[in-house]
């Protein structure tokens, strides 16, 4: 597996972060996990992607607060802490079935 990491500002809303990650996945990558970190003077999400070496596209990615109702017809594959709107939230990542 060939992985690569990006930082996403913790000031973005969770919806914005979700859009960022979805666009990145449209480049034949797959979101694996995220960790909160403090880099270059700001709180960021260090997001790890698997890089496909072909035109594979993962199914739709959905990020939601863990406290919210899970989306229908989706499977949770990750859960962790993310920085969003300058606060720490527990987030669950789902993939459409």
């Amino acid at each position, binding site marked *: 597996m060939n992985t690569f990491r990006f930082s996403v500002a913790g000031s973005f809303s969770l919806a914005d972060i979700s859009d960022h990650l979805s666009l990145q996945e449209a480049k034949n990558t797959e979101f694996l996990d995220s960790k909160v970190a403090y880099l270059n003077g700001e709180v960021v999400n260090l997001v790890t992607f698997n890089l496909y070496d072909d035109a594979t596209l993962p199914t739709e990615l959905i990020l939601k607060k863990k406290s919210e109702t899970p989306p229908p017809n989706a499977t949770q594959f990750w859960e962790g802490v993310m920085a969003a709107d300058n606060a*720490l939230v527990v987030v669950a990542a789902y993939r459409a079935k």
Partner: protein
Amino acid sequence: MLEAIPLWVRRHLHLGVLGLSLALLFHTFGCANLHYAGAPPPSYDVDQDLKQLAEHFKPATAIEAYYALRPPTREARNKVISARLVMINLEYLKWLRTVIADKQLLDTATDVLNLSLNLAATVTGGETAKTVLSAVAAGISGSKTSIDKHYFYEKTMPALVAAMNAQRKTVLERILGGMNSSLEDYSFEQGITDVYEYYQAGTLTGAITAIQADAGSKEKKADEKILTLIRPTPEEIAAVEALKPVWKRLNKQIPPEHAETLLRALQSLGAKDLPTDGSDRLTRLHLLLQTGEKTAVEILKALKDANYPGW
């Protein structure tokens, strides 16, 4: 630098430090008195102090009072800053005492001894810091009910108090240095900003950030290049979509005419050490997009300019 501040302010500034000391002494020496974190009951009523001091200092904390002055003075700046510091320290002391008192209800004296060991381990270890963060996040969100309160306090409070202590000290030193400076060197606005940061340093979020600063720097490998995902433009979104058919040729035989255009596209994008094989060139182009070294808009333009078949 402390000499720059009136005696009454220094006395109250030290209350916050006193609160931290009480907490840490408790962790170190066990619980002689469960309600007051291993120390004798304070000889003052914190709530009453807070109320009286709030009444006394509230007018002095007002920003408009400073701006009403013509011209603004260094003394007026320091008055607002120091008054706010007093208020923050008293609130912090009040909060800290409550937190520590709650913890007493959960632990035995033996547990507390272990907490002091956890404290030492947590503030120095990146791996442990990550564990702490997970526990904190779970505790704050309340989403992981399997992590009970006992676990939460045992694993997190010592680290958080230590982090708050360190962060508050760092910011306070900066503020005290600024208060010794002229208005030109340390503006009123900068002072207010620093006071806010001082407040933040005494919050759980501030403490988590401080812990993660350590964990984050350890997290990043020395030679790792981490690019930042920026807000995508509509053009970028459209370009990502437009490029999708190109990637369907990955790992397949590339006709010579395609290979030539891929070479030109890579050259125009400034790529080095270009592969001779057409398929490898397409893989390289794909990687530039995936790793964010080039945007989809840039790659699309490079392919069009190189007359890639289909465009």
